[in-house]
């Protein structure tokens, strides 16, 4: 069974997926952070492909993208850094990034590299569904790569059903109408949106992302979904850490507590 499907088969709730930018805080941290995250208890790992113009990201991830690029991060280098991924990490790994670097790398070559290193899925926020269907879906499928779609509080029921029909792993529920960034709590808007999505009885499991920062928001998100994704709050920890391994352990523990 595909690694992502296996995860959701084995675990139905409180799944924790953690996002960080490749090449941040230091150029060669990429694989180590994945290893330490798994050791700390993360269920899934999302590695960001740095981009010069991350439109959907707030200040924290903008900054980590910039630092990574200044460090010399490239997509070529990323695949090289995670060449040994599958001898060290067993949880599902997803790459998240903007479409332009992927286009320049070459979509066929990109899919092959993903398969070679053992990447399980992709989140490409600026790849629209229509383009995905006409240009990318077959290639992804051929290489065993799951495409993960985003939905937001503004997404209509009809479109959520369309996303569900096109998905075969999980659906990424963006918590609020916003760019990425940590928030302290969720309000009623989120609660009713989470509930609306749950009442649609989708075929795919859901993970909530954007704005998850701590135990409280993680708990709120998990109450209405299969788990949650943490990005900015984790990046902040990485950015100010003197000891990545122990801080990562601490952080994951504090979320799952």
């Amino acid at each position: 069974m595909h690694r992502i499907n296996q995860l959701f088969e084995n675990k139905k709730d409180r799944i924790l997926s953690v996002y960080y930018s490749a090449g941040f805080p230091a150029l060669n941290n990429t694989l180590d952070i994945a290893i330490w995250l798994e050791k700390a208890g993360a269920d899934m790992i999302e590695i960001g492909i740095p981009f010069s113009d991350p439109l959907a990201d707030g200040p924290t991830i903008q900054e980590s993208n910039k630092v990574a690029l200044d460090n010399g991060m490239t997509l070529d280098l990323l695949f090289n850094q995670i060449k040994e991924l599958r001898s060290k990490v067993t949880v599902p790994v997803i790459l998240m990034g903007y479409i332009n670097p992927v286009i320049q790398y070459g979509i066929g070559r990109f899919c092959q590299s993903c398969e070679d290193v053992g990447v399980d899925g992709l989140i490409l926020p600026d790849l629209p569904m229509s383009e995905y269907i006409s240009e990318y879906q077959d290639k992804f499928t051929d290489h065993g790569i799951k495409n993960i779609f985003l939905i937001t509080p503004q997404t209509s029921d009809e479109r959520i059903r369309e996303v569900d029909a096109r998905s075969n792993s999980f659906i990424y529920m963006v918590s609020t109408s916003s760019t990425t960034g940590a928030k302290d709590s969720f309000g009623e808007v989120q609660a009713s949106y989470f509930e609306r999505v749950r009442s649609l009885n989708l075929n795919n499991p859901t993970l909530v992302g954007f704005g998850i920062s701590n135990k409280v928001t993680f708990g709120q998100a998990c109450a209405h979904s299969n788990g949650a994704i943490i990005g900015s709050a984790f990046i902040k920890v990485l950015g100010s850490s003197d000891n990545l391994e122990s801080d990562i352990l601490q952080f994951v523990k504090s979320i799952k507590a």
Partner: protein
Amino acid sequence: MKYTVDKTGYYGNFGGAYIPEMLYPNIEELRESYLSIIDSKEFEQQFNALLKDYVGRPTPLFKAERLSDKYGAHIYLKREDLCHTGAHKVNNTIGQIILAKKLGKQKIIAETGAGQHGVATATVCALMGMECVVYMGKVDMERQKPNVERMRILGATVQPATSGSQTLKDATNEAMRHWINNPTDTHYIIGSVVGPHPYPDMVARFQAVISEEIKFQLLEQTGSELPNYVLACVGGGSNAAGAFYHYLDKEEVHLVAVEAAGLGVASGESAATTALGKPGVLHGSKTLLMQTQDGQVVEPYSISAGLDYPGIGPMHAHLFDVGRVKFLNATDEEAMKAGIELSRLEGIIPAIETAHAFAALKQLNLGQNDVVVINLSGRGDKDLDTYIRWGKY
């Protein structure tokens, strides 16, 4: 029409709507409604009335005799510099603000490079009583100070974009992020023929009034509505799109777009997208884009803030691709000289963006009988600081 957008939002291989899901409802709403709104009688009446009585259209088409003598051809200037607010940008903001009202939006955001689009947006927001936030690169705020203050006088909030090169590209990123965070009550007035479909088509339609007027004015003055050449500068490409629009299918008319070469195309400090770019995706559309081999967007450079952009609109990428439009470029130095030359020969100080179009006159092999229309997209008041600093006049 052969070169306009197709049903799926593409111009040949370029265009589309590469937007995150957060913006999907907004873009979808626009896509579904823009044509029916624009084509309605009510819209047309309101748009035309404002263009006439508020903007001051039609703008003159002026035969530049001394410039004509100098270059040995019949040169006509389309005086967009005489539009209210001093550039063609207002044609688009008038159209979009009426549309925003129809869509029930209360707030307006915009990005700006030279500040002309920001001023044009702030102006129509004042006119319509709408709240206005304009994102502007911090570097651009410094080199276009008068326009920053004009926007503020008009009641707009000017938000500095402090990421990246702190110019137009970064202002556009910030405006899009603002829209993601405020999707329901806000309309984003994009200032050029860039962005996700339907923006490039919508903006081109609003600017098309330029070539619509050129046609009848030229007919009146020369007996033919077809010139041999139409020239325009290209940042994102809105004034060029407007000047070319009704000539696109008239293959006998040579259309010439002029990009900013900055310190020189090969200098590493340039904004000449067709010379340096490859197909890529930025700000919601697939287009020609200056980028590294790894797909990171390159920071462009031009002395003129309005041309300091690493891409061009997808329509222009297509027109370049199929060879319908010839793309030339002019350096900072060439543009500044051309700006001074126009000032001395015709008594018109052009915007530095516009001066790039004039700088390309030398590169054309003009014949004595050739009729050339140059789109004089804006006036140089906002650029006095730059002219003064350049100093060679």
